[in-house]
């Protein structure tokens, strides 16, 4: 494992090592990001970020506000495509496929890379329909009994089933904030993605609900590769295996979480983690 040293310690990996090294990396990493730059019109939000994300691990992205961490995570499922006037440079490989290749559809990528948002955002539909939505639009499920079963499993996985099984037809807005967020997780799980992105999933939740969601994230990594953006360093320390520290659009440091929080290699990282700024 330690052979997968953080990329930042290596010099210009794509230029110096070429395709052979890349293909080796592709097999071992779920997501490989190379020289990623991102622009909102003329403003550059990410500068030449390269980063490898392991399968079945939780990778946390931390950094002060405006550092580009949300931008980064939304690049991984091409969510930024919706915003007009943006531009992506560099490569984002998921299972050795560049998701920004011309022949790759954003819709297909989003099916493989699920996402949970900062503020819980259930649809104005029933609890059941919220979860079933992804299946219905995919057109894969034909029989309604299958649909029910898949929805149930997703709700069980999201540790919500026991709380809602008697009122699946109630409006999703009747749920508490924490329940809504877990419903959104169930909605992401039901289409069985490979990667799940969490964009500050607990920032609007109380401590109890936060704990539940964090526990859930821990359980999910058996099946999924997880990337979580958080401004809460304690949370990153609690849930993640790897942590990336972004500042002003640049990747400052990327390392195993316990190493990052104990012996960061950069001065800036240490200053941020110890709360000298941020």
């Amino acid at each position: 494992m330690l052979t997968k040293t953080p990329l930042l310690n290596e010099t210009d990996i794509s230029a110096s090592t070429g395709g052979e090294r890349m293909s080796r990396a592709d097999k071992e990493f779920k997501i490989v990001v190379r020289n990623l730059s991102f622009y909102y019109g003329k403003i550059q939000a990410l500068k030449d970020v390269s980063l490898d994300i392991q399968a079945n691990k939780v990778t946390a992205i931390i950094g002060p506000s405006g550092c580009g961490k949300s931008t980064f995570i939304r690049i991984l499922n091409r969510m930024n495509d919706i915003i007009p006037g943006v531009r992506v440079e560099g490569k984002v490989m998921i299972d050795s496929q560049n998701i920004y290749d011309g022949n790759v559809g954003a819709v297909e990528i989003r099916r493989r890379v699920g996402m949970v948002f900062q503020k819980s955002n259930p649809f104005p539909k029933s609890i059941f329909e919220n979860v079933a939505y992804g299946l219905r639009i995919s057109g894969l499920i034909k029989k309604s009994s299958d649909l029910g079963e898949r929805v149930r499993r997703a709700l069980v996985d999201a540790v919500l089933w026991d709380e809602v099984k008697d009122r699946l037809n109630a409006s999703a807005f009747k749920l508490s904030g924490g329940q809504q967020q877990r419903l959104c997780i169930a909605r992401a799980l039901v289409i069985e993605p490979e990667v799940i992105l969490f964009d500050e999933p607990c920032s609007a939740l109380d401590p109890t609900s936060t704990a539940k969601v964090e526990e859930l994230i821990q359980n999910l990594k058996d099946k999924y590769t997880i990337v979580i953006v958080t401004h809460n360093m304690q949370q990153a320390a609690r849930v993640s295996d790897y942590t990336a520290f972004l500042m002003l659009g640049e990747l400052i440091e990327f390392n195993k979480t316990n190493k990052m929080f104990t012996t960061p290699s950069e001065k800036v990282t240490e200053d941020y983690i110890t709360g000298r700024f941020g």
Partner: protein
Amino acid sequence: MISAHINEKIAKLVLWISSLTILAILLAIIGFVVMRSIGIINLEFIFSMPRAGGREGGILSMIIGTLCLIAISTTVASPIGIGGGIYLTEYAGEHPLSKIITFGAEWLAGVPSIIFGLFGFAFFVVFLGWGFSILSGGMVLACMILNETIRTTQESIKAVPASYREASYALGATKWQTVSRVVLKSAAPGILTGIILGIGRAAGETAAIMLTVGSFMALPTSLFSSVRPMSLHLYLLAIAEVHPGAIARAFGTATLLVLMVLIVNLSVHTIMRRYTRALR
């Protein structure tokens, strides 16, 4: 998957087609009217008085009639509408009164123009005894465009940031000083566009005035003169006049009406563009 992609393509195609249809309709209407008016519209048509019962000469008195109606209706409706808008946004707050008044304005907006015509005929023409006159017609139009002025005033005042007001109060200004010197100043362009839109509506309205202004072709000599505004002139040319040039003249009048609307819209856009640029 594939069907979803094809659906997406079809749906977007349909969306494009429907929007292009609307553009085509607009171009067809304007194009048709303008093409048919070539040959009739010239400086003489615009700047000379009708002669021989409208068979010869231009439509100057109709244009002036329209302008008179606009002047009266705007003069009456603007202060009332702006005042009402200010009250609703700055003074009324969550007062139940404001809901009632807002609903009243909305209701007024929904009343068909012919009802305004009936009302104007019964009230201004008959009850107050103003007869078929620009005053009667102008007042009816004022009632009609009032709602527009209130609504745009409300919207533009709401767009003024609360911080402006707080800054003014913090300097010890009274409510009215704040409203008149800070809020209204920032909201002025928006309010102005509302007034201009009202002008556009007043210029084109026919049903409401056909029962109140009469149809006399000469220049007005007083508030109590009857006039024949362009919109009514167009209607009468299309259905009542029997002289050979009537239809050509109707197209000419229609083109001028459309031109008027175009000018109104353009000025609104210009004002709004300057306004948003100034805010930036």
